[in-house]
């Protein structure tokens, strides 16, 4: 073991080795003075911004499956990078700005290492889409990042997603280039059996999804996802508020959740059922939308069965969702 002291590392001084080019499922138009860096397995995009007197800022685009630990956990991780103390979720909701990135709601946060304008600044946007969380982050010299804010926002507005995430691109975690022989196969998933309600068209489940269905009625569409995550996946309330944010609704408290949610018994345990009606923005216009979701917290993980889509269509499928929940057969009850 050894203990030593080193000068603080500038993020630009650390070279990142490109091991493979990830599939570009997102495109953007970056400002001309942003110097593109090689993408890595962790970063979908990487830029270096130069300012006067050697000032620099680093821009990264990273995606993680699910909610990546939650917004406040990631914000606190960034705060730790510039020696700021952690904050609670309530403080984050007060200070963060809710923005819209090409029709998808996102959270914009800004944090300064020092109040006198020296040190480093982080400007970042967090966006949840298709069971993935995207992080767009600029970090560097405070005056430079402050001056680049408009460019950063313009960059965010230029982001376009390529479509539904495929199995190949679903994971942004670093996977080894070369595998050794005879890898030990992963454990068999404890996926439950279910009965697909009429009108639900089964889709290819990919990425985090254990099951995926589409509901279509004329021009109205809804998406059904069955997702399983480890542990408590951040907690029921955090996930409910994340969905509320997607429908441009404010957060609620634990008490509010207790009053508004109902419980449905399933073979896998009690399911907390939430019904969230709000609106989504697309191409500058808003339309009513609804999320109807059941959360089952089990010993081996947390299951989310969620219908998202047109307000009326989702509401119409509530009984179908209840039938689906009752048809679930988990391999080990409880």
């Amino acid at each position, binding site marked *: *073991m050894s203990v030593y002291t*080193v000068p603080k590392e500038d993020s630009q*001084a650390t*070279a990142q080795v490109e*091991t493979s080019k990830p599939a570009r499922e997102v495109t953007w138009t970056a400002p001309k003075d942003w110097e593109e860096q090689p993408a890595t397995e962790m970063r979908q995009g990487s830029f270096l911004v130069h300012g006067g007197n050697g000032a620099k800022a680093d821009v990264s685009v990273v995606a993680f499956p699910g909610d990546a630990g939650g917004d406040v956990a990631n914000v606190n*991780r960034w705060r730790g990078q510039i020696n700021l103390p952690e904050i609670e979720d309530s403080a984050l909701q007060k200070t963060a700005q809710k923005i819209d990135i090409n029709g998808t709601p996102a959270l914009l946060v800004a944090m300064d290492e020092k109040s006198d304008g020296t040190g480093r600044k982080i400007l970042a946007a967090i966006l949840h889409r298709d069971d993935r969380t995207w992080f767009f982050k600029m970090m560097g010299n405070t005056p430079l990042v402050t001056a680049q804010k408009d460019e950063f926002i313009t960059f965010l507005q230029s982001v376009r997603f390529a479509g539904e995430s495929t199995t190949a691109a679903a994971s942004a975690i670093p996977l080894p280039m070369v595998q050794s022989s005879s890898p*030990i196969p992963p454990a068999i998933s404890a996926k439950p059996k279910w009965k697909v309600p009429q009108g639900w068209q089964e889709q290819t489940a990919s990425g985090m999804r254990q099951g995926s269905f589409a509901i279509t009625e004329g021009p109205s569409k809804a998406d059904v996802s069955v997702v399983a995550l480890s542990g408590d996946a951040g907690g029921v309330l955090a996930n409910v508020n994340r969905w509320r944010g997607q429908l441009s609704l404010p957060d609620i408290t634990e008490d509010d959740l207790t009053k508004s949610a109902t419980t449905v018994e399933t073979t896998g345990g009690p399911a907390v059922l939430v019904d969230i009606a709000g609106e989504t923005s697309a191409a500058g216009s808003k339309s009513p939308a609804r999320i109807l979701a059941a959360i089952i917290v089990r010993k081996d993980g947390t299951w989310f069965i969620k219908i998202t889509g047109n307000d009326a269509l989702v509401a119409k499928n509530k009984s179908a969702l209840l039938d689906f929940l009752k048809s679930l057969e988990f391999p080990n009850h409880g």
Partner: protein
Amino acid sequence: MARPRIIQALTSLRLTIVLLSLAMVLVFIGTLAQKNLDAFYAQQKYFNTWFVYWTPQGSHWSIPVFPGGFLLGSVFLLNLIAAHAVRFKMTWKKSGIILAHAGLILLLVGGLFTALWSRESRMTIAPGASKSYTESFKEFELVIIDKSNPENDRVVSIPPSLLATHKVIQLPELPFTVKSPRYLENARLDMWKPGAPPQLADKGMGIRLDAVPVAPTTRPEEENYPAAFVTLEMPSGPLGTWLVWSSPFGESVPPQTFTVDGTNYEIQLRLKRFYKPYRIHLDHLTHEEYAGTGIPKNFASQIQLNDPKRHEDRKTLIYMNHPLRYAGETFYQYQTLADDKFTVLEVVRNPSWMLPYISCSLVGLGLVVQFGMHLFGFIKRRAA
């Protein structure tokens, strides 16, 4: 008076022949082994060891089956020194042989010093960026970094071998203990799936990930990607368990942060770093190939070396067969990466690098002297 048997054995020419024969066999086996064994592991298994061990399949025994490089070299050294001390007479007539043997002794000693003290590492830099450390090719370290000082980071480095013992590690520099309930020499990261063994990590990125064990490899074209679940615990209770993972290509699970009593820390498993008191900035990278071929014609890195303590701030060019020698290390142009977006310098520290040159010179001189004496003696006798 007859010498003790041990002295007779040590000074015996027969012993020298046996040692040379065994060395030839060892070099032959060690070379052939590199068809399927990475050179690094072949070095450890055959040459930088007292014995070559064999492990019967299905067992954990390590049975010594052949003398290793250290044993052969040490006995050879004793044989040479003993022969000189006991049998050889220090006369002008024998001066050539004495010089040649002194060169051989120096060669063996140099080999031992190299095995003990030399180090190879690499420095990967993008044009316009700079680095003040090199990284090991194969060795990793778990680092817990105190980020509280605005000027410096205090790094606690723990070798993976200690994590693999699963023992509680306590350091005065840390207010918490460190323990790894699970260490994997080679692992693949995957999303955690329901039904998999209970997730050990309850903090950081590991909440969503799982480390799937993969059989450790020593093949030359493969690498190991170590992973560890690391539990940190205060006297008041556990802080949590993090999953860390790294690769020899420089990628790893990024530093994960946590706070203890107002102090911000980072935890990461990464390639072992060797920090320098100087910094190297890559101004420009050149990579030329012979037209129409993939054969490299010219790899060159134009760098700026900045060492405030030695008042060095100069530009220099590192290219094929023209390394930079600085502060006891030699920087070779090793390769470029990712379509020339990075240069990779191989950095060699070998304090005993001069010894082979000196020893070869001594051996050569000794042979010339001995042969010269015989030649002139023969000519003199013929003239007489």
